[in-house]
């Protein structure tokens, strides 16, 4: 190719990419930078800003509640990521077998994922209501398993568990969907070869299925970590006393009058942590 042609192609390429770069710059890069800028200010409602340097960071990092919510977030992440991945994998392997009404069953599994958060949350709250709920009615009045009524969602010790269970129930279908899609493309002869080598079902899973699914599993875990570190609505609607990082941010910054400086500070730290986590994960686990 002549050098003129190469130059022309390059400039055409630039022109074609420019709108996308512009949009990303406007919608992604600019807010991040503005957020970073705001985190050094005390922002008032009428728009007045006072430069406070690192004060927002200092007061946040010296707040014991912040570390508490980091701890809650870590537990929430571990519980939900492992839970959805394992349950999604199990469901996908089950649904990859052939049986009658398989297509119907495959569809039904997706239902929790389709249902609007707000409606299922109220359903769960109704189930666990301490005075009128079905759970207490069954456990205390019908089955007589215990004498005392419990508020599983309200009690801070059990609330985290309920929130994790809710998230697993609500979001395992997306993991299931991704796993099932990949499972269907695993060549049958791999399993046949493993069977000839004398592998039982467990061995076939361990030596064929898992290596084949490796990248999908890694992707699911990555997506779940990103989503759940930032997940607000499920937790806040179901049990607002479970203070994961987004809920903590909400109480610090948006409950009552908005404190934009603090909010920006928290999200800057959260972004940095998330970027570091993902970088590590991509390098070490995905080996991209």
């Amino acid at each position, binding site marked *: 190719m002549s050098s003129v042609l190469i130059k022309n192609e390059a400039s055409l390429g630039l022109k074609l990419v420019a709108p996308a770069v512009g949009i990303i710059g406007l919608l992604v890069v600019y807010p991040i930078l503005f957020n970073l800028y705001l985190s050094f200010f*005390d922002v*008032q*409602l*009428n*728009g007045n800003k006072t430069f406070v340097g690192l004060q927002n960071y200092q*007061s946040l990092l010296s707040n014991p509640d912040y570390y508490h919510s980091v701890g809650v977030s870590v537990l929430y992440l571990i519980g939900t990521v492992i839970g959805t991945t394992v349950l999604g994998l199990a469901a996908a392997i089950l649904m990859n077998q052939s049986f009658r009404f398989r297509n119907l069953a495959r569809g039904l599994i997706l239902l929790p994922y389709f249902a609007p958060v707000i*409606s299922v949350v*109220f359903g769960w709250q*109704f189930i666990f209501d*301490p*005075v*009128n709920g079905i759970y207490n009615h069954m456990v205390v009045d019908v089955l007589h398993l215990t*004498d*005392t*009524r*419990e*508020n599983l*969602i*309200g*009690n*801070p010790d059990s609330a985290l568990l309920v929130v994790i269970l809710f998230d697993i129930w609500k979001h395992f279908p997306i993991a299931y969907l991704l796993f099932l899609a990949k499972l269907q493309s695993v060549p049958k002869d791999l399993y046949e070869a493993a069977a000839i080598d004398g592998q039982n079902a467990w061995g076939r899973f361990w030596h064929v299925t898992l290596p084949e699914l490796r990248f999908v599993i890694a992707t699911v875990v990555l997506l779940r970590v990103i989503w759940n570190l930032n997940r607000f609505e499920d937790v806040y609607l179901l049990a*607002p*006393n479970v203070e994961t990082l987004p809920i903590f941010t909400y*109480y610090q910054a*948006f*409950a*009552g*009058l*908005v404190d*934009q400086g603090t909010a920006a500070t928290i999200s800057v730290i959260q972004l940095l942590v998330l970027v570091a986590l993902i970088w590590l994960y991509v390098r070490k686990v995905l080996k991209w």
Partner: protein
Amino acid sequence: MTHCKSLTLGAVWATSSLLFSSLSQAAEIEFWTAQTQSDRLQNIELLASTFEALNDGVTVKVIGVDENEMATQMAAAVAAGTTPQLIEVNSEIIMALGEEGIVDTDTHQAVINDIGKQRFHAGALTTLTSPTGSYYGLPYHGWIQGIWYRKDWFDEKGLAAPNTWQNIKTAAKALTDKANNQYGILVGTKQDSYTEQVFTQLALSNNAAEFNAQGELIFNSPATLETIEFYKDLAQYNPPGPQNWRARDYYLQGKMGMFFYSTYIMDDLALAEVAKGSLSSENFAELTGGTFDPELVKNTAFAPIITHKSAASYGTLSGLVALKTADSEDQKATQDFIEFLYDPASYITFLHMAPGGMNPMLKGIAEDPVYLNDPNGVFKLYGADKMKQIVSGFDDIRSFSVVAGKTFPASGEIFAKSVIPRMIYDVTIQGKDPQAALDAAEAEMKAIMNE
């Protein structure tokens, strides 16, 4: 042909200029109200439509915003430059917004001048006055809170009316039977404004305060600590877990002996239709919880005043707040709309949405025969004497914001940040040590005041 063309152009020009002139006269009032129930919103819409019919070119857009969300929503609106012209919300939030410099105090002054300052209840106006003497809001309606209780159960067990700390505790203990899903009392333990309201009344009866007359923070005191400990004591008779104003449902179902509530409960107690509406959750329209007990209104008594070291009733005002706007047409229309809302005909229509719950802030309205003849007949059911007793708590409404006739707007910001409810939640639900929780709350209050 050219003649014809210029004629058409002329007509277009004429219509468009007409259009523009009518646009320039058009004013829009966006009105945010804390009355989010659909029947109340319909009522307010009706008032708005009436006002529109009387005022050409003015549109009023009514939007219901949950009281707990009002401060946040306002902040978002200010940031986005879409501030409403008028809001109706409780006095704590009004004081917090007033300090943010977004409130149109000139319009408030103009309305007061037009209506006449002496026609307002003086205490109500004081509550919304800024430290410099301007008005952050206009008092519109108010309620008082007290303990509503099952008189028949109290009589059966020989219990005294729950008007002192000792009586409350004795009754709470006597009426609790958790094995049978029966509870003596409910005090708020969720991190919301109901908890703050219950706590405030008990704290005031123990002479605890946020500020002294010099404006110094005196929240961390033995009196406050004692109140927190008493509160924790009472919370053990609650249904399990964090609780809030849904206490009302448990009481209507006959599962609870006493609960703190405002005079808003009056129509729920008296009228089957209203009670049914309350019991069926807004999220489950088909769900009607339990049957209505027609004897409930007779078997219910009210203790508006709690006495420990001093007698305390607690109540709160809701006010109208005009927000600053650059558009003078909007400002004028907003002022007209506020004055329209104070006109006896529309005022009584508004107050009748919750007979007893919304009490008038203008003198003379309460004695108006039209006011006493509410469409549901609630005032008749209760009778004039009971009404008088209920409203008696209203003459001396106290709060943390007003000390010795002076207002402290910082208490509004403390309210908006839910410092007290979070403290109560930490103690009653998380099991945190009361003194440690109090220290933490005080530190937070100081941080808010220094901002």
